């Protein structure tokens, strides 16, 4: 690992100043992604600013009935919190479906939002990768791309966004609160992550000197009836091939509320707006679910290695909605 200097920030102001004064500085949360990437030589910060002592590890109710999650809340605590389990079960399930118990004990909410892709060419410094080295090409497009995206892709990069948590946050209309020396701003999940386009190395709306301080979940009657489904190569401790976060409200047989997002299939946590549009006001039937899934996947483009994900995603969407309709939430 390339040597770096280490600072532990006691408060937010110190953390913000440390990165504002030093373009080679990076925040360190649980370290489960950053330490790995530093060891592989892909991230090479001059200064590591440890933010785990910041007082941002609380989960609390907001006056409007929503919930505010501090950026330093560990993934395991988030999943186990009574408010999240009862009101946003899809978020508990999504977090529990990711990584392992050890990693979830270390990983923070902020770090999970900013984790980088698991594309094997990105990790292999001898391979071409536009994300790691802009302009060098993409090893995955003509190579091994079983894990890669079919939605939101570009000619420059097809890396799938790896997070489970973010898929649930997208379905729940979460808002990310970020702070820098310039002040505080709020970024909706839908615009937090950026599709690769011609600049796959730019992954989020965040500037390097901005700190994620919290995630806000709006109040939502739909969210209580929600589920996460993850399809992967082994039963546990594997990234998603396809995943679905869904919240559904049905009255008198008609869909009156829906939040839907997909993971594993897209370059960003994928809010399924076409499917939501097709579902709202439609009868809550298998046929509507299937039609909504088809609408969402219509623009998908597969390669020989990953085209199977398109039908897999259609089926996963349909099955998740069906289960929500027949069994309700896991809360």
């Amino acid at each position, binding site marked *: *690992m390339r040597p770096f200097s*280490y600072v532990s920030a006691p408060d937010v102001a110190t953390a913000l100043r440390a990165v504002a004064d030093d373009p080679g500085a990076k925040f360190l949360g649980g370290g489960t992604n950053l330490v790995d990437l530093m060891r592989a030589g892909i991230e090479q910060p001059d200064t590591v600013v440890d933010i785990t002592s910041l007082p941002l590890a609380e989960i609390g109710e907001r006056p409007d009935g929503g919930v505010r999650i501090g950026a330093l809340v560990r993934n*395991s605590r988030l*999943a186990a919190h009574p408010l999240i389990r009862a009101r946003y079960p899809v978020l508990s399930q999504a977090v529990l479906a990711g990584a*392992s118990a050890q*990693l979830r004990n270390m990983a923070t909410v902020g770090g999970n939002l900013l984790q980088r892709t698991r594309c094997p060419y990105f990790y292999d410094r001898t391979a071409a990768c536009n994300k790691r080295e802009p302009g060098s090409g993409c090893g995955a497009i003509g190579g091994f791309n079983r894990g890669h995206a079919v939605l939101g892709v570009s000619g420059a990069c097809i890396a799938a966004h790896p997070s489970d948590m973010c898929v649930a946050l997208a379905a729940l209309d979460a808002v990310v609160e970020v702070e820098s020396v310039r002040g505080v701003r709020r970024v909706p999940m839908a615009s937090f992550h950026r599709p690769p386009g011609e600049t796959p190395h730019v992954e989020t709306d965040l500037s390097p000197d901005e700190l994620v301080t919290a995630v806000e979940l709006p109040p939502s009657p739909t969210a209580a009836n929600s589920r996460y489904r993850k399809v992967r190569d082994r039963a546990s401790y594997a990234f998603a091939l396809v995943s679905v976060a869904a919240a559904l409200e049905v009255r008198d047989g008609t869909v009156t509320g829906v939040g839907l997002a997909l993971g594993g299939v897209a370059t960003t946590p994928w809010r399924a707006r076409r499917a939501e549009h097709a579902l709202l006001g439609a009868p809550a039937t298998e046929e509507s679910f299937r039609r909504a899934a088809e609408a969402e996947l219509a623009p998908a483009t597969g390669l020989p290695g990953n085209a199977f994900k398109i039908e897999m995603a259609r089926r996963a969407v349909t099955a998740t909605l069906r289960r929500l309709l027949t069994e309700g939430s*896991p809360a």
Partner: protein
Amino acid sequence: MVEVRLRVNGADASLDLPPQVSLLDALRERLGLTGTKKGCDQGACGACTVLADGERINSCLALAVQYAGREITTIEGIAGDGPGHPLQAAFVRNDGLQCGYCTSGQICSAIGMLAEHGAGMPSAVTEHLCADGAELTDDEIRERMSGNLCRCGAYNGIVDAIREFAAAEAER
């Protein structure tokens, strides 16, 4: 170099380390506590599992400097000076190991897992998220222990050992 004051198995140790040294390397190379194993060094196998304030973590992805002042427990601390921990005995009785390389991590992980389960934390296979204390079925044990790989495939014995130990603890 930074001065890192670690607290490991109840004893204080002050080490001068470059900040890039992992907790795993500090334990093995500086403190001579080689019970904790290095499998992948990438967070993917669980061989390096230790407890930090009673919670299981992967020490390979932990910078030692970040864990200063935390109470670290390794397999040496769990075993103690006497006849060993009853969970170790349960692993032996139930053939919960073959080569033994993953075993320290399995045992530290199982102890952390039982504490999580005891605190009512759900898992990915828990059917009712809000129910108090999911029963510790074999499916629950397997899911909760999925962060510990065993290349020898001693999984059945590992699950048997944990189930037996958990049942004995519940009776005490």
